[in-house]
């Protein structure tokens, strides 16, 4: 059983209330920080911890914090990214729903460390009931003097507000999120300037994921070094993994970074193996945006080393044979899954969610969706597969925000690792059409492959 830093009390009845959270050591980090640490010391501890952003990109949090501009007389903001819309990811919801005070304590600590007196939690609109849970927990914290003026007699003031979105994956991108928080369409901004210099309302801003902010609590409690002692190499601490798909035990698991992927999939402590005794075909390890890997490559690197749940090990081999830890949205597919149809589903998603500012993303995602639809319907040709490859290569790296890359990588990796399956669809063209026709006529669910 690995060490847990965030979810050790997730099953305690009433842990969502201030009283029970406190009974289990809650707000001790805040007390410690406000009574005995300077803001700079907290930033130092976060640097020492090696904590990396848990929203997907894995950027070192301490470094991000030290980039924050501090012009005199200008307010600074801490904004928590609770937009959680990357398909396959549901850990932030779990954390906020179960232990809202952990996020709130992390927000107060981060605001103190960065000198922000007003902070926002931007949560996706569909998580409305979770926003309610947060609002009630925030009200409790105000009533107990943990938010507002002169927190715990320290002289530090902090207001914390929940802001709800209204349905747009792109608002998880940090500059789109800030636009949305300003009451606008969620169009990502051109960078630079980065939010650290000009973020919310043009002021210096730090945007961090829910899990990143929550991890500041154990880092302040036990010290950055204790956090860094967990994990492997530059993948320190614990990570919440959202496990879903064809597995026996889907759910949110807090793992020590470094657990072997094979253990994560097959151990009863985690995913518990593939459902219905089937074999595993493929895994998308870090949310829909990261490259898909076939079973053999997710379990072992191309050098035959066992793959570990770390940023480095999952990326081993680059895009030729590796993937990314991303947001930790771990989607497992069994042997009956159609990779082509799954890819169509993902590509349709990116097309739907493209904000439309850049033509490679706006046009390319829709074009790829159409080609995939054509292949699935049995009208594809071999040159369509090459065309798909060509389009994705012309999106990647050529857009304002990384949604373009996120749409390209699944296409590239599916073709790279499962090209024969695309060719099979093309070859079986007319028979697929006949089968589909038969099923439609009889109003039956269509077979996937």
């Amino acid at each position, binding site marked *: 059983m690995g060490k847990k830093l965030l979810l050790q009390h997730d099953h305690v009845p009433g842990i969502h209330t201030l009283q029970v959270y406190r009974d289990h050591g809650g707000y001790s980090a805040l007390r410690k920080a406000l009574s005995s640490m300077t803001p700079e010391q907290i930033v130092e501890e976060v640097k020492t911890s090696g904590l990396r952003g848990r929203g997907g990109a894995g950027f070192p949090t301490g470094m991000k914090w030290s980039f924050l501009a501090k012009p005199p007389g200008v307010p600074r903001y801490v904004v928590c990214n609770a937009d959680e819309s990357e398909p396959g990811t549901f850990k932030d919801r779990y954390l906020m729903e179960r232990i809202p005070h952990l996020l709130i304590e992390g927000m107060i600590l981060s605001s103190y460390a960065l000198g922000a007196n007003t902070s926002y939690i931007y949560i996706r609109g569909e998580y409305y*009931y979770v926003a309610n849970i947060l609002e009630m927990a925030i009200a409790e914290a105000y009533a107990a003097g943990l938010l507002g003026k002169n927190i715990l007699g320290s002289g530090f003031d902090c207001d914390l507000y929940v802001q709800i979105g209204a349905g747009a994956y792109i608002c998880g991108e940090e500059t789109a999120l800030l636009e949305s928080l300003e009451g606008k369409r969620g169009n990502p901004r051109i960078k630079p300037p980065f939010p650290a210099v000009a973020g919310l309302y043009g002021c210096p801003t730090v945007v961090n994921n829910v899990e990143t902010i929550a991890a500041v609590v154990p880092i302040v409690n036990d010290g950055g070094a204790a956090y860094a002692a967990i994990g492997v190499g530059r993948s320190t601490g614990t990570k919440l993994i959202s496990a879903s798909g064809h597995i026996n035990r889907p759910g949110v698991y807090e793992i020590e970074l470094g657990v072997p992927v094979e253990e994560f999939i097959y151990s009863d402590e985690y995913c518990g193996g593939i459902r219905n005794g089937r074999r595993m075909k493929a895994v998308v390890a870090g949310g829909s945006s990261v490259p898909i890997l076939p079973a053999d490559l997710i379990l072992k690197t191309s050098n035959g080393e066992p793959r570990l749940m770390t940023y480095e090990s999952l990326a081993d081999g680059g895009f030729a044979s590796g993937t990314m830890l991303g947001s930790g949205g771990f989607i497992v597919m069994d042997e009956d899954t159609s990779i082509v149809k799954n890819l169509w589903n993902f590509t349709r998603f990116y097309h739907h969610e493209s904000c439309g500012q850049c033509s490679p993303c706006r046009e390319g995602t829709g074009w790829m969706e159409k080609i995939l639809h054509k292949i699935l319907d049995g009208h594809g040709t071999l040159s369509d597969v090459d065309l798909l490859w060509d389009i994705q290569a012309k999106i990647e790296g050529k857009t304002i925000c990384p949604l373009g890359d996120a749409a390209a990588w699944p296409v590239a990796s599916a073709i790279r690792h499962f090209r024969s399956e695309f060719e099979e669809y093309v070859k079986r063209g007319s028979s697929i059409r006949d089968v589909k026709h038969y099923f439609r006529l009889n109003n039956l669910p269509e077979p996937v492959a």
Partner: protein
Amino acid sequence: MSNPQFSPETLALVETMKRRYPADRQKSALIPVLHLAQAEFDGWLSVPVMDYVASLLSLQPIEVYEVASFYSMFNLKPVGKCVLEVCRTSSCWLMGAEDVVRHIEKKLGIRVGETTGDGMFTLKTVECLGSCGTAPMLQCGSDYYENLTLEKVDNLISELRSDGRRRTYPKADRVMD
């Protein structure tokens, strides 16, 4: 509805919202206020409702239209009392979301995007709602219905129908001063 008007209770909430942002940044209240409007005015945003929101926040109507049309949760057409929003993305798709959609279509005699003749149900498909570990799932109002089976869907539809109330987002308990 030609002259929409929030209840005094909702107007008080709007004032609370506005206090959350700097005085010259009141536009930030737009999305939360649009949610309140959608909840209060039959689950969708008509042009008069959007104009009303614009006047409340001292915005140009276009500033409201362009935002309302960007976000998928805002309905710009009338909807049924219960909007069934079925997740169609990755894990839900792997776990049978298509069957759920097809089942509802058949049961209610409508296609995705349509509303039943009695104005009771609208069927929508939506993207990943962060419930992939309990797939397939759907949302109705602010409630999540997870680990769906066709039988559970049937039960839910009869429950919603016999209850007959509009499913929306509870608003008053959410906002504190």
